[in-house]
């Protein structure tokens, strides 16, 4: 049971000109469950970090007041539990039970009381393995359940959830939502940050919307807040429920097809992908779907000429087997966009990033300039031309990674989970862009879990089944 009070709270990270959050007045009573919303950059994560006591005094400048049960959050740390986005970097130990015990050991719980509390917490989140299950053998959703158990074992009065399902596929996200719902304790105050509002609504009874420039835009029961502010929030990228997405399907696929841009004949990769036959055509969006671990991303690497099949064959038209081409040749024919945009960045400026591909192809400076200017404009990156790619937001980084693939004008574009973790606004822009490319005659292949993406855009869906 904890009460949260903020009075004119503001925080500015050291070395930044802009305030991360500003002018927040808020009172959250014992046992309330709050969804904290706001467009990207409104300071939601900073606010959670402040409440968790994770903003050291020397790491920035504070104003106003923030209190948990009347205490400075840095002195109330044992009352607060925080679950982060990424399950990989919040598990500490190699065995599941040890990981839940970790926090209890830190809080000096007597040894004989640790294991009963570990078992209780594992039970509350529906963890279905023995305590010595290696954490590395868990799926993302199970790891996140375990992270939740590690926090619940500490019996926090205030539970903070920072986009706990953002890094998970839909089944993993469902696991975690069910665990949060099942483990809910009427005595625990809860604040959750979540873009996918529909997923969070069953868990909360109040919605608070932060205003990017400072202050609070809206505060109240979910229905009232969305009735009044829903349209604007949706425009700003929040996934407000019950709002349709634009459809981009082509009326009918052509009955007589030209040659496939790329074709897989029994292509397989040992231990990662069972043999697949598949063709991708120009002027078509092909969605590759299927359960986790079936090898969808591996298939994308094969089609993209990045990996050689261990058996079978991948053939591109024209040109033969794409994994044998030099990298520059490859980029002129097939563009690949990885799930994690940061893997693909090789320079320190957004504009340079776009110039890499064309320069490798030996284009003239004037040609490169034209391509870069055009893409900066087309993907709304103009204002960021001089920024470091690693400092971009998730949506900006995604747009840049797509733009880098387009810079060499390939005929075929292969994307791995392009819409994963994106806000509504980026999602809509991305879908429109891919539809445009398709209509210009490009082939588009997307590996995806996103049913909305398939419904809105895919001309053909190929579902890989578990072997």
């Amino acid at each position, binding site marked *: 049971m904890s009460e949260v009070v903020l009075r004119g709270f503001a925080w500015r990270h050291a070395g930044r000109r802009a305030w991360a959050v500003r002018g927040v007045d808020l009172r959250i009573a014992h046992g309330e469950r709050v969804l904290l919303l706001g467009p990207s950059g409104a300071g939601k994560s900073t606010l959670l970090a402040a409440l*968790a006591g994770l903003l050291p005094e020397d790491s920035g400048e504070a104003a106003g007041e923030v209190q948990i049960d009347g205490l400075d959050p840095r002195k109330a740390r044992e009352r607060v539990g925080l679950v982060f986005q990424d399950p990989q970097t919040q598990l500490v130990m190699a065995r599941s039970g040890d990981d839940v015990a970790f926090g209890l050991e830190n809080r000096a719980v007597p040894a004989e009381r640790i294991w009963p509390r570990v078992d209780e917490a594992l039970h509350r989140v529906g963890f279905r393995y023995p305590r010595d299950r290696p954490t590395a053998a868990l799926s993302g959703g199970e790891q996140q359940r375990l992270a939740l158990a590690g926090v619940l074992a500490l019996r926090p009065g205030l539970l903070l959830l920072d986009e706990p399902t953002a890094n998970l596929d839909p089944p993993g996200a469902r696991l975690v939502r069910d665990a949060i719902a099942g483990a809910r304790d009427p005595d625990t105050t809860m604040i959750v940050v979540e873009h996918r509002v529909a997923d969070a609504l069953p868990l909360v009874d109040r919605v608070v919307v932060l205003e990017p420039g400072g202050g609070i835009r809206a505060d109240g029961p979910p229905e009232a807040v969305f009735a009044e502010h829903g349209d604007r929030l949706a425009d700003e990228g929040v996934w407000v429920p019950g709002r349709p997405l634009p459809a981009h399907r082509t009326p009918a696929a052509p009955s007589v097809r030209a040659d496939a841009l790329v074709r897989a004949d029994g292509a397989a990769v040992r231990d990662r992908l069972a043999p697949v036959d598949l063709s991708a055509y120009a002027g078509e969006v092909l969605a590759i779907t299927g359960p986790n671990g079936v090898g969808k991303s591996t298939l994308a690497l094969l089609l993209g000429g990045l990996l050689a099949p261990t058996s079978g064959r991948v053939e591109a038209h024209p040109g033969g087997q794409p994994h044998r081409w030099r990298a*520059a040749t490859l980029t002129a024919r097939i563009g*690949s966009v990885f799930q994690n945009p940061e893997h*693909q960045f090789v320079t320190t400026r957004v504009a340079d990033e776009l110039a890499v591909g064309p320069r490798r192809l030996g284009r003239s400076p004037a040609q490169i300039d034209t391509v870069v200017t055009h893409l900066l404009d087309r993907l709304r990156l103009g204002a960021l031309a001089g920024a470091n790619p690693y400092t971009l937001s998730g949506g900006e980084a995604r747009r840049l990674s797509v733009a880098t693939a387009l810079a060499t004008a390939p005929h075929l574009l292969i994307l791995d989970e392009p819409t994963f973790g994106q806000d509504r606004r980026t999602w809509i822009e991305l879908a429109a862009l891919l539809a445009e490319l398709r209509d210009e005659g490009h082939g588009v292949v997307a590996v995806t879990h996103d049913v909305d993406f398939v419904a809105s855009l895919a001309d053909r869906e190929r579902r890989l089944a578990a072997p």
Partner: protein
Amino acid sequence: MLEPVVGGTGPLARRNPVAKLAAALAFSAPLLSTVDPLTPALGLLVELAAAPAFGLRYATLARRAWPLLVAALGIVVTMVLFAASRTGALLVSLGPFDVTTGVLTGALGLALRIFAVALPGVLVFATTDPTDLADALVQNLRAPARFAIGALAAFRLVPLLGHEWQMLTLARRARGVDAGRNPAARLRLFASTAFALLVGALRRGGRLAVAMDARGFDSGVPRTYARRQVFRRSDAALVAASAVLAAAVLATSISVGVFRGIVG
């Protein structure tokens, strides 16, 4: 390569991790005091005899120890090529290199030393769970938890690096960046990929540190321990036995008259 292969099946594998580590050191270090081939050979015999007591099969041990074999072969080749003194009877002449008994004895001695000194470490790490080791370091040796548990947590992220490296390499190819056959370009590409890997590892490490912080790690309160590590009399006996065996090996080589001290 580093993760333990057995979960405490041998009687010695079940000993306290700190005791096992100390025993390995107590046995290896004295073997370094001499350059003759007999001492490490005797040491190696003792170590091989001890392997079953650790619950390790010789096939498993060989699989774990193959990098040592590579190192030992390297030593022999280097010695044959570059040894300064070529004493003893000439065995065979390989072009400009005279292979003599003196050269071969020297090379053999060095190769045996590598095995004899490193094998105890291989035995210990093959039979010790890293979590138990960290716990024992903190509880029995009073090592700072910040260091031992922190290193343990960082260790967990290491397997991710292999996958990360592959993704970075493939992503560079997807960007049109490759080196072809040019060695300078290869080196540059390797360096830039390694840098990206490092940046990613630091970011992940930072996030992990914050998550540990949020769960009260190193907050000034003395920790309790869910997994108790006890240093028993049998653990002390293991260390003592190991030191006695090392002394016996040295005594043998001194009495036979082959001991050649590394100093003096």
